[in-house]
């Protein structure tokens, strides 16, 4: 980062949003005297947590600080695992390939935008990881990507390669509305225009993918012969079908946007017919109606806390959806689906205590270990355990309290958000921005 840039950034009027953190690969830090909510291994009342080179080395009491290490005093504060948003659309250059209904070749991982200031917004709410997804315009959208909120790092460093590769599906109104020409000069009308059409087109594409795989299998078999047939030409490689093949072969899992119970069950029927894995249903406002079926099929849900009935297809949504399903054994996460709600996921999670009667720890799980499991990264993040990555958020009050506030967010031992420092920087930036104006325009 050159000096002029830094100077300019600091001048950014009253915002100071782009002051980038200094970075060293895999940081080390000792957090002292905090109430450590590990999520999976109970609570350490007045404990220390040591991160060395990005990984949690020790959790306990009176840990001696290794030489030269950064020590953070967390007295009176709560130390929790970095929050994970299981469903959002931040940090992307474009969300929907809405020109066509079936676009599994369009991968949002190719268009990560590390400059999106929403990353910083997320950090300010304790979020360290987000599943940033293709939109819901298409029955089959495209692959999603899991990102760490490493603000200031190049886009490729944000991508979490250990995560499951997920493919976005969508059912219901968003697909239907996207199929219509709403604006003059907008995209032409598209199939499908109904829910039955949505189901049919997904089925049609799965059959196509099956045939595509068969064709390749046949070719590979012939090619493996001792004397392969003369002039054997491979089939055409079709990226759209390749992506669906990956799904059918289990190299990808489905994440499906749905609102109503009927369409969800139909989709699970398709998954059973074609043998692909549905990792979670998104929004799933009527999941409470089919909680037993979801639990039996080991299909998770990723939902809002309490914003029900904001449109017709959400009319039968209830605030008890998340809590009730969690108690029925469904793997539940609370998501933001938004660049704004992402900074207060802890508030949303705490609502399940009122609506659904979850305990503090169960509620906290909805935005930590549960989304980690849904994303296939529970071995590296999602709770505070020795050996896991040092992704940590520090709150001034219990994170499920209505009065809580995120003070600091740490990823792999590096501080990416420090509220006190941030406010100080912002104040200074505002002062600097004021200064030259005095002689000038005023």
């Amino acid at each position, binding site marked *: 980062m050159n000096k002029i840039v830094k100077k300019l*950034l600091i001048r950014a009027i009253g915002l100071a949003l*782009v002051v980038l953190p200094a970075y060293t690969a895999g940081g080390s830090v000792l957090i002292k005297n905090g109430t450590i909510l590990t999520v999976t291994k109970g609570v350490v009342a007045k404990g220390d947590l040591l991160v060395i080179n990005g990984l949690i080395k020790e959790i306990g009491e009176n840990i001696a600080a290794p030489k030269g290490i950064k020590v953070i005093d967390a007295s009176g504060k709560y130390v929790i695992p970095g929050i994970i948003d299981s469903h959002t659309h931040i940090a992307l250059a474009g969300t929907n390939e*809405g*020109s066509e209904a079936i676009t599994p*070749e369009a991968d949002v991982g*190719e268009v*990560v935008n590390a400059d999106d*200031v929403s990353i910083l917004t997320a950090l300010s709410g304790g979020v360290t990881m987000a599943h940033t997804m293709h939109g819901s315009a298409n029955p089959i959208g495209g692959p999603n990507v899991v990102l760490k909120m490493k603000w200031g790092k190049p886009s490729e460093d944000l991508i979490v390669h250990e995560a499951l590769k997920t493919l976005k599906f969508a059912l219901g109104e968003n697909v239907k509305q996207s199929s219509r020409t709403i604006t003059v000069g907008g995209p032409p009308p598209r199939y499908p225009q109904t829910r039955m059409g949505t189901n049919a087109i997904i089925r049609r594409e799965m059959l196509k993918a099956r045939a595509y795989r068969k064709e390749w299998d046949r070719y590979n078999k012939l090619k493996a012969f001792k004397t392969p047939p003369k002039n054997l030409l491979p089939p055409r490689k079709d*990226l759209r079908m390749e992506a669906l093949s990956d799904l059918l072969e289990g190299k990808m899992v489905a994440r499906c946007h749905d609102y109503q119970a009927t369409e969800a069950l139909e989709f699970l029927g398709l998954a059973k017919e074609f043998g692909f894995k549905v990792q979670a249903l998104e929004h799933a406002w009527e999941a409470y109606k089919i909680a037993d079926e979801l639990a039996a099929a080991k299909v998770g849900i990723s939902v809002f806390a309490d914003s029900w009935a904001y449109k017709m297809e959400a009319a039968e949504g209830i605030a008890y959806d998340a809590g009730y399903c969690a108690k029925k054994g469904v793997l539940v996460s609370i998501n933001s689906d938004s660049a704004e709600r992402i900074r207060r996921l802890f508030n949303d999670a705490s609502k399940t205590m009122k609506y659904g009667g979850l305990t503090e720890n169960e509620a906290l799980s909805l935005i930590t270990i549960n989304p980690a499991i849904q994303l296939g990264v529970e071995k590296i993040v999602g709770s505070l355990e020795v050996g896991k990555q040092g992704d940590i958020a520090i709150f001034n009050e219990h994170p499920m309290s209505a009065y809580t506030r995120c003070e600091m967010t740490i990823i792999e031992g590096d501080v990416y958000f420090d509220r006190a420092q941030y406010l100080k920087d912002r104040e200074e930036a505002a002062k600097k921005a004021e200064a030259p104006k005095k002689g000038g325009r005023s």
Partner: protein
Amino acid sequence: MHKKAYLFGSVFLILSLIGPAAADVGPTYAVKNAKIVPVIGPPIDKGVLIIRNGLIEAVGLLDKVAIPEDAEVIDADGLIAYPGLISTHTNLFLEVARPATGQGSPEFTAQQALVQDRPAETPELCVFKLIKPSKAAIDSFLKIGVTTVLVAPNRGIIQGQSVLLNLNGEKAEPMVLKNPVALHINFTTARGTYPSSLMGTIAFLRQSFLDAEYYAASQAQYAKILKGMKRPEYDPFLEALVPFVTEKKPVIFQCNNLEDIKRALKIIEEFKLNALLSHANEAWRDAAILKKTPIPLLVTLDFRPPNSSQYVNQGADLRKKAEAEIYPANAANLAKEGIKFALTTFGLNDGAAVLKNIQAAIRAGLPKDEALRALTIQPAQYLGLSQQLGSLEPGKIANVILTKGALFDEKTQVDKVFVDGVLWKF
């Protein structure tokens, strides 16, 4: 001398017989007493430059180079001679928009009917067919010393093929130095049709190159067998793309931001393309990745930050500063890292604005001689024309500028411009 005059006479005669097919060669010129900056080799304080038949015949010290009798002598005392500048990416002379290929146009429907899921892209388009040279545009560029421009198509994703022009007149054919030059690709989206998103565009590019490879393989196999094999279906889109994957003809990627540079590098690597990166005004943001690749960079002098940049969405002040201070330092930062590049005028259609921006780049730390190389010999090398362009050497095309004062200095004026050996009249 007699013989030479005779030779010149016959050349003139032949030319007048065959008409204006080639550029007007003009008289023979002897530019003397000028300081000569040949770019290749050291400057000559008081020298002579002989221009004949559109080419540089001789360059050297005043007492080493004889002035031909038939030459029109130009006393250039106090002037400095440089090779004409080259801009390797422009959209000049394209005032007339390409016929619309969006939704609703007949082309759109026809193309969609022909190949499903493919936008109406035009790799086969030679932009030469569309250019309408204008004196105003030529004057504007010659006034700052730019004598040679690459004109690229400017619509769509796979846009078509560019042409390299010497700005020697208003007639298109005599201007052509090379046609076509390269296939141009832009990371943009199609309107009202697939792909409507950047991720769709990337998938579309991949699929197109995959299909071109497959098409080439099928055609090659058919050519071998002929009898007993069903002929592969003809596809003009893929037919046009094939030379870029099989013969490795050059492809220029327009990289509108840092991420586009990374995207282009991935696709280039995947399909082993012979590629160049253009625009690249965010190259400074990650010099490390560019240091690792030998892929030529055509860096624009347009300093407007891309819309994706963190400098554009946080108030007008920051944006203005970015344009005035951060982005102009792009070339300087690359030079500091030892990364080679050519400078282009892409995005700027006015010569005066180009000069202002060259000066801003120099103020931001780009050494003047690096700026000169980046507008002369470097682009000539990238275009495979280092034998014909980019320096003042005998045998090269006589694109020569004479300036009052050092090139790129604030008060410097371009006094005379020779293009293809012809003295341009403003």
